[in-house]
């Protein structure tokens, strides 16, 4: 039908326009990283003339980029690991065992989903200070763990509840301890849910700026988004370096996203779709 083809054409045009809008800034960022300042100011849209690596060299030699990157990896990995361990333990108990107050406890955990922890930043700050955890990695990690627990428990209890009981029973009959059943039988089965819960928390933690801004002041401890504000200030007028810094900062998560786009999309939209 003619009308159908017309509307299909219109829709393709809309998608193409949108893709252009989404990709142009990223392309400009990536290409500008290889340009000299003179090129950048003269023709911001043109391709780089010589693909100079000077800007990237400056980032690695004159800024703490690698240090910030390392800090971000460390904090994200530690937070997600601790979070998944704590969440799995609690979810397993609430999903597979009968005990009094189970539903109430689960509801209390899930109530955490409604709490905007950012607004409790002042008492959190005072408390971390009191615990001697201000300006330290463990303090930040514990805050992230607390922030992520409700959503991780939500995903994991739902998943663990739905698992069939036969394997578990068979293992018990053979004399396996409760810990062994959890570790060797149930955990491998829960992998898909663990991946979703992991990504759902890893991305916001990796990208977070607010909590490090408040909690970390020592330059040596700063994370990548925070470090970015440091060298964006330092190289204020050196646009080639600025673009190189942005490109390098965006690279790790962009690569992960391209490799695992399905899991990223599922993980990040999960909470909202259910």
């Amino acid at each position, binding site marked *: 039908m003619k009308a159908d083809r017309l509307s299909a054409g219109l829709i393709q045009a809309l998608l193409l326009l949108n893709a252009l809008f*989404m*990709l142009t800034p990223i392309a400009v960022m990536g290409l500008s990283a290889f340009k000299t300042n003179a090129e950048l100011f003269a023709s911001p849209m043109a391709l780089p003339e010589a693909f100079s690596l000077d800007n990237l060299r400056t980032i690695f030699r004159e800024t703490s980029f690698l240090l910030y990157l390392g800090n971000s990896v460390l904090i994200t990995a530690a937070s997600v690991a601790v979070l998944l361990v704590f969440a799995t333990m609690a979810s397993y108990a609430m999903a*597979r065992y009968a005990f009094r107050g189970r539903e109430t406890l689960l509801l209390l955990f899930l109530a955490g989903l409604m709490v*905007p922890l950012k607004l409790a930043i*002042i008492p959190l700050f005072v*408390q971390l200070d009191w615990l001697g955890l201000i300006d330290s990695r463990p303090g930040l990690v514990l805050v992230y763990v607390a922030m992520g627990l409700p959503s991780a428990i939500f995903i994991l209890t739902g998943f663990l509840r739905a698992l069939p009981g036969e394997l578990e029973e068979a293992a018990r009959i053979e004399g396996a301890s409760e810990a062994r059943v959890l570790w060797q039988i149930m955990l491998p089965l829960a992998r898909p849910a663990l991946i979703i819960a992991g990504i759902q928390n890893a991305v916001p933690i990796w990208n977070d700026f607010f909590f490090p801004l408040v909690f970390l002041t020592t330059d040596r401890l700063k994370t990548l988004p*925070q470090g970015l504000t440091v060298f964006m200030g330092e190289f204020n007028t050196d646009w080639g370096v600025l673009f190189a810094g942005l490109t390098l900062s965006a690279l790790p998560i962009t690569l992960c*996203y*391209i490799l695992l786009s399905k899991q990223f999309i599922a993980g990040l939209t999960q909470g909202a*779709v259910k």
Partner: protein
Amino acid sequence: MRSVSPLWLAFLLAPAALTMLVFVAWPLLGAFRYAFFDFNGLATAGFAGLHNFTDVLFEPPWSAWTFQALRHNIVVFAALMIVQNGLAYLIAFALLKALPGHRLHQVIVFLPVVLSAVIVGFLWKLLLHPLFGVVNALLAAIHIQGPPWLGDAETALPSIILANLWHWTGFPALIFLAAMQRIPAETLEAARLDGATDGVLLRRIIWPLVAPAATIIFTLTFIGSFNWFELPYVMAGLSGAPGGATDVLGLYFYRTAFGSVSSGLQDFGHGSALAVLMFAFLAAVSSVALRLLRRREVDIG
């Protein structure tokens, strides 16, 4: 479902429960308590009654700052509701058609979502630079003199909203898409056989059926708009340059609590009062809105 030893149960539950208690429940209670105290640095310095609240609400210059910031948050919310969510709805419908390349488009529209607001903010700040930015270079190519964007009080807030649009549109788009994909194909087919055009489909058939997804998106947009912090912080600075034209509650709260660059003054009392008011406002509006939106789901479903 079986019973096990209380010790094993406690071992499993304690780490998560303790973390939540110490780092969520206790601070949350603290937030309410602190609002009624004066502060001297990190220590409380006497009961303040309600004066932290009355100060930020009625006492100039506090009140002027509070309501200016609130006004800007409302503008941001309205713009994102209409433009960002509207665009997302159209993109979701376009993706639903499953035309060639739709999977790639899905990946592309979601790409900015995974980047940090700090990267997005700095990138758009460079792109929107009045003299050397790409946006004005493109406009100049079609003989339009671009505005100074972040440098002008008129265009500064819309500039940051534009960056937000680029950053987040993919998120509601894919949530709408997931909801649309759950509509039975026969329903859409039947409507089409009855002669429904795309416009009619979008307004009369799909819209009511994705109402639950819309409820979630609207609520998240609301909370997100009133927690706006990173983008304005990076693009316009802590004081909401130029001249407070981009000041929002998040920046104002942070400045009050932890001090700005110019004045290192911490004021936890007034900061906490602001936090409590923002929390109460968000909780009240979202619970009323949720109830209305749920009723709407039933009414139009």
